[in-house]
């Protein structure tokens, strides 16, 4: 038996060769295919070209298009037509764009505030790519004014609501055990809703990610990776601490992190939409965000209601949960990147789902202690949590 197991683990020169054989064969097949074409006729009638317009920037009397070549081969920008006018242009660093490289197309154009523009970019192979500017206005440039603007957006949608939620702490501490379990279930419901919402938003952004970067795959990597990483960390902590109070605190922090990523994604989305004029952040919308996100603060404190975390810790949790909305608004407002948005949202979704799992474990412990007899408490709690977000969401959508 022992001999057998040592045999298994021994890695010999022979096994190295065996490992390499398929790779060598693969190289052979590729070489053969490249030299002969493998018997397939692969000449396409028309060149396959793909160009992503990642963003446009409107300045006084001029327009910039930030493009990325997402096709299989190099492409050359040959012509720009805006609202039925051929415009002289120049491309930085050059009109030839390598695969996956970016370039900026500049041209002068006397655009008018509030009007719509349709731009066609022609490549040298006469392939047309269309860009629409639904509402023209000067793109906010990084300045103290716009910086403040985006900071305020983040403050409203993230920081303020989360802190307002945390202010429920003293009141909720007075609750009995059963009510607290109910509250945990509410939190789980909130998080299920938020998790789904985050995933849906990630899927939305994934469409805008250049196809070469495989947005959907990115969501899988971000979500599953984050879930398993947080799970591993939490298992490690349980082994080290074991103390139930610390566990509650750890879960609270993890909820804060998950919600933080969610808010980062939300900030990115709002900042990006705001900077291209796709949404007007009306008073009503801001109020809606505050009301909806106040529940996030509630979620953060639920696992630690029984304990006595310091004010400092509560404040840090609030910042972790809400602060990223500001960072998101900055990034989204100045350099909207669908790639980053998908990644952050996927991480957020993974974190949120892991936290739900942690809360489920806490609830299970609670119910075991209570004799396991409160099925309706859990049901009504989770549903209440989900409904809270659904109803307050009516204000925003």
């Amino acid at each position, binding site marked *: 038996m022992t001999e057998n197991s040592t045999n298994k683990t021994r890695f010999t020169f022979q096994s190295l060769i065996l490992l390499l054989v398929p790779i060598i064969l693969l190289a052979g097949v590729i070489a053969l295919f490249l030299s002969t074409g493998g018997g397939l006729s692969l000449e396409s009638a028309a060149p396959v070209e793909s160009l992503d317009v990642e963003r446009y920037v409107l300045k*006084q*009397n001029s327009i910039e298009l930030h493009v990325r070549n997402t096709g299989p081969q190099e492409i*050359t*920008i*040959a*012509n720009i*037509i805006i609202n*039925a*006018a*051929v*415009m*002289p*242009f*120049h491309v930085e660093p050059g*009109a030839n764009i390598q695969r996956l490289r970016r370039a900026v197309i500049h041209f*002068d*154009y*006397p*655009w*008018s*505030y509030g009007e719509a523009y349709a731009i*066609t970019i*022609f490549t*040298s192979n*006469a*392939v*047309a790519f269309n860009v629409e500017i639904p509402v023209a*206005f*000067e793109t906010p440039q990084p300045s103290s*004014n716009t910086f*403040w*603007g985006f900071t*305020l957006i983040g*403050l*409203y949608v993230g920081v*303020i609501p989360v*802190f*307002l939620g945390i*202010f429920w*702490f*003293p009141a909720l501490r007075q609750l009995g055990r059963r009510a607290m379990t109910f509250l945990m279930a509410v939190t789980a419901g909130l998080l299920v809703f938020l998790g789904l919402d985050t995933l849906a938003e990630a899927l939305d952004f994934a469409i805008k990610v250049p196809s070469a970067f495989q947005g959907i795959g990115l969501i899988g990597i971000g979500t599953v990776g984050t879930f398993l990483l947080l799970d591993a960390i939490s298992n490690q902590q349980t082994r080290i601490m074991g103390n139930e*109070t610390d566990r509650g605190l750890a879960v609270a922090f993890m909820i804060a992190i998950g919600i933080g990523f969610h808010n980062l994604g939300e900030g990115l989305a709002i900042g990006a939409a705001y900077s291209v004029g796709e949404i007007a952040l009306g008073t009503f919308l801001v109020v809606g965000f505050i009301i909806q996100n106040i529940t996030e603060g509630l979620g953060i404190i639920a696992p630690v209601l029984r*304990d*006595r*975390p*310091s*004010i400092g810790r*509560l*404040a840090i949790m609030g910042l972790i949960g809400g602060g990223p909305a500001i960072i998101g608004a900055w990034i989204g407002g100045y350099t909207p990147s669908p790639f980053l948005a998908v990644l952050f949202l996927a991480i957020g979704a993974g974190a949120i789902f892991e936290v739900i799992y942690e809360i489920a474990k806490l609830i299970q412990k609670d119910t075991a202690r209570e004799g396991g007899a409160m099925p309706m408490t859990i049901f009504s709690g989770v549903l209440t949590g989900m409904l809270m977000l659904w109803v307050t969401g009516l204000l925003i959508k």
Partner: protein
Amino acid sequence: MKSISRRDFLKVGGLALFGTAGAVALNQKNDQQPQTSRISPPMQHGDGIVPGTVGEVDHEANGFNPTDILTDFDYGEVSTLPDGRILREYKIITINKEIEIVPGIKFPAWTYNGRIPGPTLRCTEGDLVRITFQNGSDHPHTLHFHGIHTGAMDGVPGTGPGGNVQPGGSFTYEFDAEPFGLHLYHCHVFPLARHIAKGLYGAFIIDPKEGRSSVDREMVMVMSGFDIDFDDANDFYAVNAIPFHYQNHPIQIKVGETVRVYLVNILEFDFVNSFHLHANFFHYYPTGTSLTSAEFTDTIIQGQAQRGILEFSYQYPGMYMFHAHVTEFAELGWNGMIEVTE
């Protein structure tokens, strides 16, 4: 673990409330900001912003230059028939050719004799016209002339061998030149719009026996467009094929010189085209079939295949624009300049 006292709680709450109040105050300031930016800053439409192309197409590779096409008339090989009539013989071959229509973009064109528009065929009323047509392309093509002739010479499918000349094949079209005027020729094979839009068209001038009044300069302008992405909508417009050519290379004339322009519209996908001359008026002879001017104007409209002759001269030196007054065509290439010097 420290417990939270009521006092601590109020401290945090106060801080947060202060923050909120501050934010609200800032927000009010922020609210006004978009309103000020709503009054858009004055935009100068200086000389710096003008539609146009950057650089120059490769005329040599294209095999033709619009500046030369202006004054390039093909009178054919002239001989006298036994009965004393003039015989004019022309050779036309269709060639598939990549034409660089704007810098950097090549259009897979079909051409007569390797150029767009095809050669401007010119003859006199009553001449016998004989065109040896060869199809060097990989699609069937024909020559369909606007004029008066027999059905067999009409170059339309269903009229005999001249109505569908196969790749590698040839056919000789022959007819009397009538009536005098400004006409055109083009391919008439299905799908028709595509065969024309790919470049198979040209001007056909039949001069009246007694001739027209003598002028200092004669020019041919064939108005057309290019649908480079094949969505049955033109992406570029031009006279004599290359968008903005005469904007980049103004036509040179002198003060007081009389100018005659043979203007043909063979634009596909759009219903009308037009011609507008700046700071001047011209006499207009629709289809050129009368020697009396029909109109004294500065703008005319032509539908598909309509054509007419313009006569004008400039009194003052300067740069004068001419373009389609279907103005969206102008900024997509159908724009030119005439430079008048002393």
